[in-house]
Structure formats: C-alpha cells, structure tokens
C-alpha cells in the first residue's frame, strides 16, 4: 500500500543506476526526518542508553558513576522486599483497575452510543475526568477522603451510621481507593473508543441476527464482542501501560512524609518506588534498574498487542 518502486528484472548496472536515483530522491526526505530524528535521538535514545548504563553503576547523582555489573538487578530481583511489595501492589492494582475500567467503559459505550443530546451529555460527563488536570483531581480526592468527620466520604458514611474511617492511612483501603480513582478517571476514555468501535460494526449483522431470532444477549455475545476484539485489545493494553505508570495518585494522595508509598507502603507502586529510590534516596543507578525492569514488564505485555506488530508489518 505504500509507494514501493516496482522491481522488474533488470541488468545489474541498470539496477545500480536505479539505486543511485532512489538515494538522490530520498535526500529531501532525510531532511524532513532530521528534526524529529535529531530530537528523538538527543532526548530519548541517548538518555535511554545513558539510563541503561546507569543501571549497571552505583551512580548517586553527585559522584561519578562506578561500574557494578548486574548487582543492581540482582539485588532488585532477589533481595529487595520493597520492590516485591511495589510489584505486587502494581500487579493487583493494574489487574483490578484495567478490568473494571474496561468493563465500565464498555457498559457506558453500549448505553450512550447514540447521537441524541442525552447521550452526548452523558458522554461528556464521563469524559470530563480525562481532560481535567491530574494534580487537581488528586487534590480533590485527598480532600474527599480526609480522615476527619467533615470529609465527604466520612459524611456519606455517617448517613448510614458508620464511624469515620481514616481512609488514607488504612492499608486495606489503599488499593480499592486507587482503583476507584482509576476507574473514575479512565472509564470515559475507553468509552469513547468503544463507541467508535461499536459504530463501526455494520448494522446488517444485527438485522440478520434479529431475523434469526437472536436475543439481545446473543447479539452482544456473538456479534458485538467478537467485532470489538481489536478495539478491546487496544483499550486493555493502553490501560495496562497507563496503570503500570501510575504516579500522581500515589504522590499526591497517599504519600506520607517519610515515604512515598504511604502507610506500610500500601500504595507503593513501581514508578513511585523509582522516584523514591532515585530522587529521595539518590540511588540513581538503582532507580535506572527499576525503570528498565518496568520497561521489561510493559514490553512483555505490549508484545501481545497485535496492533503494533501489524502496524510495523504494513509499512
């Protein structure tokens, strides 16, 4: 589908002339690529290489880095209980947040896929959190889950006669609250994608199914879900990547003075842990090792996503 030059069988010198011409035509193209590639290399590829190097050093930000080999990774994967806690928290959080917000997105999309004004208003409402400043949103949550009686959450509890809860310093509430915030913030985004996915399903499929006497559930099960397959994969994978990188929610809402992870590290996730090791404990080498571990985890999961591989194949 791209502008590939046809390749008829030609003599060798002819082929060479073509190659030269091809390169010459390509010159302006490289100029067009230059700004992006230059910036991309300067502020992404080069830092990445640096970071990879740091991961094998004891770099502390001030003294020059000293090579320690795989020690950081060995310590991280075999000894570090905080890392294990962060990883476990992240996995639980990601699993719950992604499942719930994908389900919520789909439900919302099915309910509000229409073009009526009610549907549009509802879509707007559910989408609002996606466009609101994350920091502002997290400040609001912190205010709502204030442990004192005037907190909104505790006020709602008091209507049912319950005692106030110190939400943010009770470890068993941490992950549920984070998941709640994630679903609240993320369901609108998924909804919009699902709506367009739903609208791309040909109406004839449903007509045929109805003629065959299929129930609503059967239509959903045998037409909607399979047709939404690729869209769902996309929503799930972008959700996974985003959820693994959660930072602001922990930093603003749960952090305690002495530790980013909150009480008993109950809110410690991978990126907050990276920040903690890198920017409050100076272990920049170790932080780089965490960053690359995070990358490996996301990479393995992303590889499952056919979307990228297909995009590459098509080029």
């Amino acid at each position, binding site marked *: 589908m791209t502008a590939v030059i046809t390749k008829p069988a030609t003599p060798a010198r002819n082929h060479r002339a073509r190659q030269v011409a091809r390169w010459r035509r390509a010159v302006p193209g490289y100029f067009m690529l230059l700004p992006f590639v230059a910036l991309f290399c*300067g502020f992404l590829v080069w830092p990445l290489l640096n970071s990879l190097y740091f991961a094998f050093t004891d770099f502390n930000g001030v*003294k020059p880095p000293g090579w320690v080999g795989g020690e950081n990774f060995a310590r991280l994967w075999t000894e570090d209980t905080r890392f294990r806690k962060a990883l476990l928290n992240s996995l639980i959080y990601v699993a719950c947040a992604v499942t719930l917000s994908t389900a919520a997105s789909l439900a919302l999309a099915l309910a509000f896929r229409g073009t009526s004004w009610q549907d549009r208003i509802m879509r707007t409402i559910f989408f609002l959190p996606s466009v609101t400043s994350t920091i502002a949103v997290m400040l609001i949550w912190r205010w709502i889950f204030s442990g004192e009686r005037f907190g909104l959450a505790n006020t709602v509890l008091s209507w049912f006669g319950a005692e106030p809860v110190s939400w943010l310093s009770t470890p068993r509430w941490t992950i549920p609250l984070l998941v709640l915030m994630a679903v609240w913030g993320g369901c609108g985004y998924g909804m919009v994608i699902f709506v367009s996915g739903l609208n791309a399903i040909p109406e004839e499929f449903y007509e045929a199914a109805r003629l065959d006497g299929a129930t609503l559930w059967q239509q959903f099960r045998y037409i909607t879900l399979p047709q939404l397959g690729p869209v769902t994969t996309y929503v799930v994978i972008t959700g996974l990547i985003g959820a693994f990188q959660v930072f602001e929610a922990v930093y603003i809402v749960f952090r305690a003075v002495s530790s980013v992870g909150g009480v008993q590290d109950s809110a410690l996730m991978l990126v907050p842990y990276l920040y903690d090791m890198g920017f409050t404990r100076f272990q920049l080498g170790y932080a780089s090792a965490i960053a690359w571990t995070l990358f490996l985890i996301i990479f393995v999961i992303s590889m499952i996503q056919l979307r990228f591989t297909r995009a590459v194949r098509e080029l």
Partner: protein
Amino acid sequence: MHRRMFATAAAVVLLAAGCTTGGTDTPQQDAAGPAELLFWNTGSDEQAASLQVAADRYKETHPDVTVKVQAISWDDGHAKVLTAATSKSGPDIISGGLSWGIEFGELGGMIDLNAYDIAQAKQQTRPELWNSITSTDGAVYGIPMDMVLYVFYYRPDLLEAAGVTKAPATWEELFAAVEKVKASGVVTPLVEEWGTFEWLPWFNYLKQAGGALYSDDCSQVTISSDQAVLATTTWADQYRKYGVPKATVDVGNGLAKGEYAMAIGASYLAGGFDAAHPELKGKWQTAPLPVGPAGAGSFVGGKIVGAMAHTRFPQAAADFVTWLYTDEAVEILQREVFTRGGELYISPRPELLDKANASDNLRQTLKATLNTVTGPPNCKGWETSGSEVSKRLQAVVNDGKDPKAALDEAATIMQDNLR
C-alpha cells in the same frame, strides 16, 4: 523558515549528545563583587517571608550581600535539593531536615562548615542536637536552624469534667485519663501530631522506656531490646486501645471544638491556637510528655541550614548561616514567624526561649522538656532506615504483628544500612 528551525534543532541535539554527565569543580574562594545568595528554606511560605525580613536586616550591615529566600515544600524539598546538588546550580544556602546535612554533605553536595567560624554556634546549641547533625567523621554540613520539641497539650476543663485534676505525668496516668475522658463523652480523647503514626512519636516512648536505636558509637543496632518492645507495645496501644487517630489531624480545631481533650504534638503548633481559635484562648495548657519506666525523654527535631558545595560565595553563605544565631536574627524570627505563620519559633539557642512569644506555662514546659531531649541518630543509613522502621511499627498496629518480631526485622534493615 523551517530550514532554520531544523538547523537549530540539529545543533541542539549535537550539543546534547556531546555533553557528558560530569561536572566541574567549584572554587572555595568567594567570587569577586557583591554576593547574591539564594536561600531555599524548606517550610511554609510564611516562614520564608519571615526569613526574608531577617535577610533584609542582614543586608543593612552587610551591604554587599543580598539574600533571597524562597520556600520549598517538605514534600518535594528533598528531591529539589538533590537535583540542585547534582546539577551544581540553584540555591547557595538550603535548610531542611536535621539529617539532610549529613546526607547531602557525604554526597559532596554541601560544604563542611568546620572550615568557617562555627565554634560559637556549637557552643550555643544543645549538645544532643549538635551530635545529631555531626557526621561520624566530625564534619558539620549544616548547623541547627531551629528546634521542634514534643509538647503535651490539653484542655484542663475537659479533663476536670472527666475527673482528672492534673495533667497526666506518667504513662499509666495518661491512659487512665484517656479512658475517663472517653467515658465523659469526648469522642477522641488523645491525638498525636508531628510524624503521626510514624517512628517519631514512637521514639518518645522508646526514650521513656530507656531504649535507644543505636549504641552511642553507632557500632550496634539496639532497636530490638526489651525496652523497645515495651515502648512499641505502649505506642501501639494508643491506636489499638485508646482510639488515637492514625492520620494527621488539625489539633487546634479539635481542641477548640472539644473533640479532642489531649494532644501530643509539635511545639510550633502552640503559636497558632489563640489566633486561629479565639474561643480556645486561656482554655489550653501544656505539660512535658508523661514519663515512662525510665523517666522523661522525647525527640528533638528541627532544621539544619548550610551552604551548598557549588556556591560561588561560600564565605558569605557561611557568614549568613551563623548570623542566624545572633540575638538580632533570633528576635526577628521569633516575632515574624509568630505574626505571619502563627508558629512558635524556637531558636537553637535555648536561653532565648525567655523571649519567645509564649505563655509562662508553655515556657516552663519547653524548658523542662529541653533537659531530656534526644535528636535523631547520626548513624549511617538512618535516613533510609527510618521509614522502614515506621512500616514495621505500623504492622504491629495494623496487622497485629508481634512487637519483638517487628523490631527484629527493623534491626536487620538498620544493620544492613549501617554497613
């Protein structure tokens, strides 16, 4: 037009690629010309404004030195000072937690003030506090800038209504008072502020029980002693049995509304009660913390102030830092911090307490407390271990973990970090 833009972009990237991560050393001699010092003060905006007033006064006698004070917050102050230290740019002077000097200094980010004239400051500061900020090798990267003590606040009227006639003086009296006050209808008899549900308030119990975190020479971890187990059990009972909130609360507001009757809190709170809650005026009192089996003891905290290693004016910076110990500077800070921020400023010079904006009762409490304080340990790795200890302690309360087992775990971590 695009072409020029690309050229710039390309140049930028080449520059970036050509750079390495090293830096250059800065000379220790003051640069010529008038000095402009940037001072990052960790704390509230009001505190920074108060320090600015002091700095402006300093300029009157030192016309060549301009100090500009900026507030950075406790939440991201540590990270910001680190980035300044690594980038060798930003502030000339910083203030921050008592352990920051040792921490940043050993990384090479701060100047050892022993090279300057700090003898007087050392002599004026309480030795417990000075020990806390001195590296094990003797270096002093930051000198104490203020002190924060633990104070027992209470409402005598609420205590009397519950049949408690005087401030509890011992652990037993404290918890007996909590039960009586609770029975008299006060929802939350006792609250804790300043490091709520972290190691800080626990450290008070540790001292009162006669325990210590490390041996005096930092060679041994002593956190899993019998005294520490007793302290931990008592500390945990506050939350488990006596309904002390695990989250930070607004002490003034709660005392004013009669929701709280007693509070173990930081000394700086005292400045704000009357102004913020006029109805509380004359209704609150203070006392030293109740004593344990080993007598009185509590934590002393505060901030250090020191000069960054990259400053172009180390001499001027060191001079300003020590100037903060003068009568003049302390007087300005006592006044300004109180009127602007409603906080009580306690200078590291304990004898100046008499001039602080405080009632007689509060002054008595502070003086009595000062005789039995202990600063944070200056042993290697404590900054990292502190939050780990907090988590083990929290597990005792939240998960019902055995105190001895929790402390053993904490000891292992501290031991690892000590090496």
